[in-house]
């Protein structure tokens, strides 16, 4: 934008329009109304309103960011104008819904939406006045955030985010933590009936903002002091944190209770798949869109080998050796690896989009085969396989969410361990070289056939393991569980977390699998949110939430680089 001191109203107008279109969209798809049943801060602000306010806040923020001249002078009015425009568009919506009977075309343009947008005021005029006022104020607040010094700005944004997140999750947190009476008093003070209480919200805001600001200004000193400790202390600290992490992981299902444990298990199965696809896509750069195939194969092998529903009746299969879970598990993983290699052979010569399309086809072929009448006697067709076996160690049977949790955590840890070891090894380097430049990698003496098949096989192993546990967890398998959407979910979580990054897989799975499970209202808008999140990520943070760090090895001894294991896994 031009560098003058004139008030850049055109730009503010543009930002306001963009914000308005976004606000209009989320209102008319029904998100605002749906989410209004949940409060962020009890009695003050609902989640639906929060969504709208975020749109306005962003409009104000960016309008102020583009405002020319000295910062501060024009930022507030720019933000306010942008917010006003955004709110104005919503006001127009409020007016024309009853006038044009919009509800006939847009079912979500309901009287309830009007009530929400006009702050439950009886009179429409007063409501619109409120709406415009709120828009201008929030827009100005967006402008204000923009002109804050960088350190404070980061603290404020982070604090707002945490207030939102805690408010969102209050129901869960309360249910979870009621087992611990010690924290009960704190909780009832912090949370209202729905969402955070006002003092709770203020406390969270102050704590997060203050903590972040302090860490930003003092964190380096603390880190320096830790670094200055003798190696023995370092080792003790590292072991201490490992022990704490293990204790937390072991104790977690008791705290979480059955429902949250089940959610954690779903996340864990996706982490397992994500770690596998991370090897194929993140390390080796082979874009595989049919990854669900190996998940399905693992599940079906587990199902066929352990199912006790044998016979000719409906829902039964003709062949089933009725092996135990532990006998079937390695076979399931082995068969998945075998299929990973078999499906890998035809695509050895393919790259990029061609590879993606062919693997996409493979994924569908496996699903359709599972549905087919041809294989129905063996794998049940659309009726699936029931009575899949359960794992057992001593007295512990893995059939409840809280016991399965340990099985899945063990699987994730194993996959994480293998991924870590492979990442820094000769095969891992060959994968990454191939990802960077396939021709040059081959000219460096890397056997592309072996390297690619190793990647496909390893990826399929993790996915097969995940599928086998999934089959045992659900107890029955149906072809519709293995849709293309699973492949897309796994790929998305890798992209969101950060390609090739192991912690990124955990972050991605928590965000893309965990959050939608926890917030049931989201489920209807899941794909919309996925799409929006992916676009925003690609534009603002293409390397992912937690990108792969480069390894500093030049001045380290080779042995030292292998010692530190990853702490705090599947939470």
């Amino acid at each position: 934008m031009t560098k003058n001191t004139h008030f850049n109203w055109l730009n503010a107008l543009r930002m306001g329009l963009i914000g308005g279109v976004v606000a209009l969209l989320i209102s008319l798809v029904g998100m605002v109304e749906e989410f209004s049943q949940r409060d962020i801060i009890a009695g003050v602000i609902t989640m639906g309103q929060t969504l709208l306010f975020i749109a306005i806040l962003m409009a104000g923020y960016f309008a102020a960011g583009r405002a020319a001249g000295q910062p501060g002078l024009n930022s507030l009015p720019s933000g306010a104008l942008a917010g006003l425009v955004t709110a104005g568009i919503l006001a127009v919506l409020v007016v024309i819904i009853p006038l044009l009977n919009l509800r006939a075309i847009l079912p979500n343009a309901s009287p309830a939406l009007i009530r929400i947008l006009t702050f439950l005021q009886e009179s429409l005029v007063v409501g619109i006045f409120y709406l415009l006022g709120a828009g201008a104020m929030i827009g100005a607040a967006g402008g204000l955030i923009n002109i804050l010094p960088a350190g404070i700005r980061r603290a404020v944004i982070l604090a707002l985010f945490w207030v939102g997140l805690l408010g969102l999750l209050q129901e869960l947190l309360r249910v979870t933590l009621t087992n611990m009476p010690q924290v009960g008093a704190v909780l009832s003070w912090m949370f209202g009936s729905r969402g955070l209480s006002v003092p709770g919200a203020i406390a969270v805001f102050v704590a997060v903002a203050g903590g972040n600001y302090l860490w930003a200004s003092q964190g380096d000193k603390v880190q320096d002091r830790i670094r200055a400790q003798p190696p023995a202390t370092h080792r003790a600290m590292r072991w201490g944190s490992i022990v704490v992490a293990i204790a937390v992981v072991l104790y977690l299902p008791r705290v979480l209770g059955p429902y949250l444990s089940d959610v954690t298990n779903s996340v864990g199965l996706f982490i397992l798949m994500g770690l596998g696809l991370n090897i194929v896509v993140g390390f080796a750069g082979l874009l595989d869109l049919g990854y669900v195939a190996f998940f399905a194969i693992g599940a079906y092998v587990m199902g066929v080998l352990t199912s006790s529903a044998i016979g000719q009746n409906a829902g039964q299969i003709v062949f089933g050796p009725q092996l135990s879970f532990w006998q079937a598990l390695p076979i399931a993983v082995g068969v998945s690896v075998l299929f990973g290699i078999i499906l890998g052979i035809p695509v050895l010569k393919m790259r990029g989009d061609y590879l993606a399309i062919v693997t996409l086809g493979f994924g569908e072929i496996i699903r359709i085969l599972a549905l087919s009448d041809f294989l129905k006697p063996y794998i049940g067709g659309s009726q699936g396989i029931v009575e899949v076996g359960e794992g057992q160690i001593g007295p512990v049977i893995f059939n409840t969410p809280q016991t399965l949790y340990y099985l899945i955590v063990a699987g994730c840890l194993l996959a994480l361990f293998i991924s870590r070891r492979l990442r820094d090894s000769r095969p891992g380097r060959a994968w990454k070289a191939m990802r960077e430049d396939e021709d040059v990698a081959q000219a460096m003496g890397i056997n592309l056939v072996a390297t690619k098949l190793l990647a496909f096989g390893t990826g399929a192993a993790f996915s097969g393991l995940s599928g086998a546990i999934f089959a045992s967890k659900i107890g029955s398998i149906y072809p519709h569980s293995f849709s293309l959407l699973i492949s897309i979910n796994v790929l998305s979580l890798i992209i969101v977390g950060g390609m090739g990054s192991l912690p990124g897989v955990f972050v991605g799975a928590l965000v893309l699998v965990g959050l939608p499970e926890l917030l049931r209202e989201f489920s209807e808008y899941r794909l919309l949110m996925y799409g929006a999140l992916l676009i925003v990520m690609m534009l603002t943070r293409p390397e992912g939430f937690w990108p792969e760090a480069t390894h500093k090895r030049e001045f380290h001894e080779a042995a030292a680089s292998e010692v530190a294991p990853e702490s705090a896994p599947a939470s």
Partner: protein
Amino acid sequence: MAPILTARQVTKRFGGLTAVNNLDLEIQERFIHSVIGPNGAGKTTFFNCVTGFNQPEAGEILLNGHHLERLSPDRITQLGIARTYQNIRLFANLTALENILVGQHPRLKSGMLGAIFNTPGTQREEAKALAEARRLLAFVGLTGKGDHLARNLAYGDQRRLEIARALASKPKLLLLDEPTAGMNPRETEAMTAFIHRLRDELGLTIMLIEHHMGVVMGISERITVLDYGEKIAEGAPVEIQTNPRVIEAYLGREEAEAAGEPA
């Protein structure tokens, strides 16, 4: 003296275009042998035939008596040929050190299981590989830059890293495709001295493509000139400088008659 690389009647066509035509070439051990020629003369195509990127339609290429024509690039590298590229092709998102470690790939043994269980053998091999990578880093003068991503290195550093990566496979024959392209005179001089060191200290045979005539004439023991895929001259720098066919190829007929010597 037996040649380390022998090419006999190598022909490579792309559709109707004959990029390399009936080329005979011998490279003597421990020579610095330049291949020059105007743009489109088939120099890089010949490099690609030697390294297995392209399969020649006819003819044979032998490294110490081993046929290379039907082998894949990775096998050829394992036999002892390494190369650099005209437009630098490093593994951009790996660190400098990792680039060199990848270069050592064919000389290392540890596989998947060794990596997962981190066996003592693997640990020893990795430690040795890392030490070797640091040594190569120092050899090309990049000490202290090993942890930088390759794409963040300066242009000259990238060229040298590419050579270090090629050296990591312990080649007998090193193919350099325009090693001084895009360098200023000072960097060019340093690179020339460095190529000499490669031969003198490491005992390598070096075949290079180069456009910079000052470098070619100063560095080469033998020069082969290609034009339209065919060899038009071969000999020591002095012979090439005065060869009328070479002058003609570079300057065109009329200018060649007017001018005495090429630059």
